[in-house]
């Protein structure tokens, strides 16, 4: 079995005096879409930030593509091929939509076909192309954040709750987009609260609680097992979506 694209082993993270992650272990297989689920405050965002080097793991190992990136600086991690969509979206509100996307395309001018594809997914961005991004609606900002992450091909996308604030029709769009990205060979690690979206997309699922991994496996198994859903996520599927 080939080494997974991303591998976390026994990662602990402290923020100031607080111990947030208590030994996180999981892997993201190449070319697949892995969902990271868990209640509020479980540590999902902290996990993504730790991978991205925005918070330093206090112990444990993070390997990406065969390289140890545990102690690497954030820009180096980005250069290794990881794109990140933070929970708060990280939009540069003073810059226009165009400038936001231009910055994301690190290697130079944007590829026209890719840009057309992205703007096709999110037509609103086209409309507000030269508007300061701060003026976008909540959902439009979310779209821009995703668009930025996929402006150029990357090896791995880390995406924190992309569907929050999106209208159902946009959620569908988004799901299509992730499917297309996956098809083009990209690997995705997605944090999601929307179990409907999660179940429609995920190949694998990792569930966190209280800074630990409490479940990891195939998505199909979790979808099939409502009792497990209830235990892990406190969710009864029929009540939501």
């Amino acid at each position, binding site marked *: 079995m080939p080494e997974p694209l991303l591998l976390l082993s026994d990662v602990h993270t402290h923020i100031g005096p607080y111990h947030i992650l208590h030994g996180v272990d999981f892997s993201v297989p190449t070319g697949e879409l892995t969902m990271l689920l868990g209640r509020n405050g479980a540590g999902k965002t902290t996990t993504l930030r730790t991978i991205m080097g925005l918070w330093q793991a206090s112990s444990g190992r993070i390997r990406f593509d065969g390289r140890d990136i545990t102690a690497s600086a954030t*820009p180096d991690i980005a250069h290794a091929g990881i794109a990140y969509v933070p929970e708060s979206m*990280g939009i*540069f509100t*003073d810059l226009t939509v165009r400038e936001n996307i231009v*910055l994301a395309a690190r290697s130079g001018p*944007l590829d026209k076909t890719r*840009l057309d594809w992205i703007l096709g997914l999110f037509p609103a961005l086209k409309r507000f192309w*030269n508007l300061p991004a701060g003026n976008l609606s909540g959902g439009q900002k979310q779209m821009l954040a995703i668009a930025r992450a996929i402006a150029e091909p990357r090896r791995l996308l880390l995406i924190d709750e992309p569907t929050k604030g999106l209208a159902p029709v946009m959620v569908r769009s988004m799901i299509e987009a992730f499917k297309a990205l996956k098809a083009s060979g990209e690997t995705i690690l997605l944090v999601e609260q929307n179990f409907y979206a999660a179940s429609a997309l995920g190949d694998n699922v990792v569930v966190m609680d209280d800074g630990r991994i409490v479940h990891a496996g195939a998505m199909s198994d979790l979808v099939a097992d409502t009792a497990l859903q209830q235990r892990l996520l406190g969710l009864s599927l029929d009540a939501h979506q």
Partner: protein
Amino acid sequence: MSDLTTDAAAPAELPRAKSDWLPLLLIPALALLALPFVGSPSTWVTLTVAGLAMGMMIFLMASGLTLVFGLMDIINFGHGVFISLGAYATLLVLGPLAGWATADSVGLNLALLLLCILAAMAVTGVAGAVFERVIVRPVYGSHLKQILVTMGGLIVTEQLIHAIWGASPIPIPLPQSLRGAFVLGDIVMERYRVVAVVIGLAVFIGMQLLLNRTRIGLLIRAGVENPEMVEALGYRIRRLFVSVFIAGSALAGLGGVMWAFYRQTLTAGMGMEVMVLVFIVIIIGGLGSVGGCFVGSILVALVANYVGFIEPKLALISNILVMALVLIWRPQGLFPVARR
């Protein structure tokens, strides 16, 4: 840095940004408005040319600050001392090459000026790097601490200038061929001001190109708002910040040289003396807009000249007056950066 003109690659139907030319019209409008009040056309031309040139010099001194302040959101109260430091750095050149100043050759004279500028930019650039590293880095994000710490740096540097070059004012010679004025009928144009115009324009155009044709400007503005995200996009924002700070300091050094030759006397406090003016210009321009700083500098200098001629009593407050009027018209300055 790579080319930013991605609109070329983008689908044609994408909307384009509108440019805002209105503030540029202010300058000719102001000049025309002043003409009837000044009366004599020859005086008017003299005042206008002198004002334009003074504006360029102010711009040279302010441009570095607007860069650092506007792009990196750092208030460098120590900027003034970089102006002084640049001015004093000319002594490194003027000492050994004193002959070039009195030489009767325009070439040598200009070469001397150029060498002074290079020396000053080198000295202030290095000083800027030290400043950034030792003083400013730990206080990114907190304006107040920046003010205090850079003020501390200012005092220390000013004292070091005293320690190195002494406390007495030092006269410096303006190279021979840059002295005096061109006289055309009743119109006089100081030669040195013509030089200032040339250098000011060159720097302005250079900065515009750098900021608008490359993504540096964007990156820095983005980095100020959310440095984490810029790093997550794969840019080393720290390195960029340091370079900008160095560039800003070097520009202050350049401004310092120009100012030094204008005053023909060096004092450690010479940079601090112009700081209120520099701040006013930057505010008028719209914090961080190089174009705004340029227009603002010229406006302030022109108004000072016209007012000084028409009603000298008001000259005292002409700067503040200009600022107030501009802010009433555009509360964020002429070219608010956020709206660019």
